[in-house]
């Protein structure tokens, strides 16, 4: 991006798409929590809800009553970008660009998304794009303007397979290898051998791990309250998201000990050591 160099764009500014292939694995939860955690670290962040027609990032952020304009209004020129951005209740440096509830995914083109991300990148340190499920037009729009991707997967065969599919599709874009967030892990089930463990998943996907988020009731509570769990110091999932945010800023943060932790860290070290 040669022309951006001259602008006010912060040096490390980046557009990150949060995607998964499979639906309901925690893309929106992850976007909201990483966004809130990055904001609490002092970064300026904008969340784009690219799930047009099924918006819910605004609800998770507790901002649904403040929506006046949305993403489609911006690309269609009904309002200025700044008018559609909703400022977060808690952080001045956190904004949301909501999706349209009434339109469908074809209301936006990849080219328009690329331009939008480029414009927002000038103003914010992090532009996080919450992708819809699937690999169709909505996904293509969500990845169009992204510099890199976070893949969310749950420890289930179908989720891992969809994540693999997405990684393959992203390889075709000129993007660095995506990073993986494993969501909803249940250490007790892993210990009993009833759930895929992290090394099984990494073995197949062969990408770097960005974080492991436990299955945690506090996510449900915080989602209903519109208060991201990352902002609650008592939430284990929130802690995991705070760690992920710090890793995104370049910090080295050791992986959390998930109760049974025995061996998890050691195993990851070994995997990283031998990763291709």
């Amino acid at each position, binding site marked *: 991006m040669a022309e951006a160099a001259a602008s006010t764009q912060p040096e490390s500014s980046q557009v990150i798409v949060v995607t998964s292939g499979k639906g309901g694995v925690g893309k929106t939860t992850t976007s909201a929590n990483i966004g809130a955690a990055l904001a609490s670290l002092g970064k300026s962040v904008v969340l784009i809800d690219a799930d047009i027609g099924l918006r819910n990032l605004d609800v998770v952020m507790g901002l649904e009553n403040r929506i006046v304009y949305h993403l489609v209004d911006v690309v269609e020129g009904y309002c200025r970008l700044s008018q559609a951005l909703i400022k977060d209740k808690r952080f001045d440096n956190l904004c949301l660009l909501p999706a349209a509830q009434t339109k469908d995914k074809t209301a936006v083109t990849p080219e328009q998304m690329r331009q939008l991300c480029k414009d927002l990148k000038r103003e914010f340190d992090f532009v996080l794009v919450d992708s819809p499920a699937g690999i169709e037009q909505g996904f293509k729009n969500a990845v169009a303007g992204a510099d890199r991707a976070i893949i969310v997967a749950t420890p289930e065969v179908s989720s891992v*397979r969809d994540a*693999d599919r997405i990684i393959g599709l992203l390889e075709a874009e000129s993007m660095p290898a995506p990073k993986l967030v494993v969501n909803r892990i249940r250490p007790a089930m892993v210990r009993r051998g009833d759930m895929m463990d992290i090394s099984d998943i990494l073995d197949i996907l062969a990408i770097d791990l960005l974080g492991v988020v436990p299955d945690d009731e506090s996510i449900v509570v915080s989602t209903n309250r519109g208060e991201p769990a990352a902002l609650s110091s008592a939430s284990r999932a929130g802690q995991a998201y705070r760690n992920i945010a710090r890793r995104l800023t370049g910090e080295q943060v050791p992986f959390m000990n998930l109760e049974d932790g025995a061996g998890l860290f050691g195993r990851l070290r070994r995997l990283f050591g031998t990763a291709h």
Partner: protein
Amino acid sequence: MASQEGSSGSPPTDSLRVIPTRSGVRVHLPARGDLDGVLAQLEARLAPEDALRGRAVTVDVAGRSLDVARLREIETLILDRLGASLLQVVEGRAPAGPRPRTDGAGPARSVRRQGRRPVEEPAGRGASPSNGALPLDMTPTLLVRRTVRSGQRVRFNGHVVVLGDVNPGAEIVASGDIIVMGTLRGVAHAGATGAPDAQVAALRLQPGQLRVGSVIGRAPDGGPQRPSVPEVARVRDGVLVVERFLAPGGE
């Protein structure tokens, strides 16, 4: 199936013929006539029935000399638009009389990366030079230097070697052997045009489904086993057998 006229041994004629085979169809192009028209006719005939999806297709160009652009067109039609898994183009017999050269400038034989041998010919395995030295397999081989991921398919007329894994949901189809220098968890189909002596080898052979020629095997229920040694799958007496890989001569 679209059409069942004629038998496969018959001489080239001036009409388009589609003949069912064990693994798909064999298409005989008419020896004369405008190729654009012929391809359009072929698409119109086969597209509605979706008859080629997943099948192996042999196109006999009846002695026409096609350039690369033309071969690409045939490839796009058969593999992409009609959804076939494997394509091979054979030159076939030109009708008596002067050779028609209606299409393109030079013959494609030298630039074509896929083999042009007819199906009936043996795969070339063990074909030894006439001086009786080393038995060499000269079949074209495709090297895939990456992990093949879910939703990705590799199709090749020849052997396929993957330097990486083949993940669940990925598929490799080859007319020859398949060798995976990694873990094979997806679907592999070796000998897809019928070669019964084809084989599938992997450092870790854990496929969901394996096909060699027309024999299909699937992982036992309860998930694939996790072998720790390189293994190879072949057809023996009509059954798919998996055994520890041993270098030939070491057995």
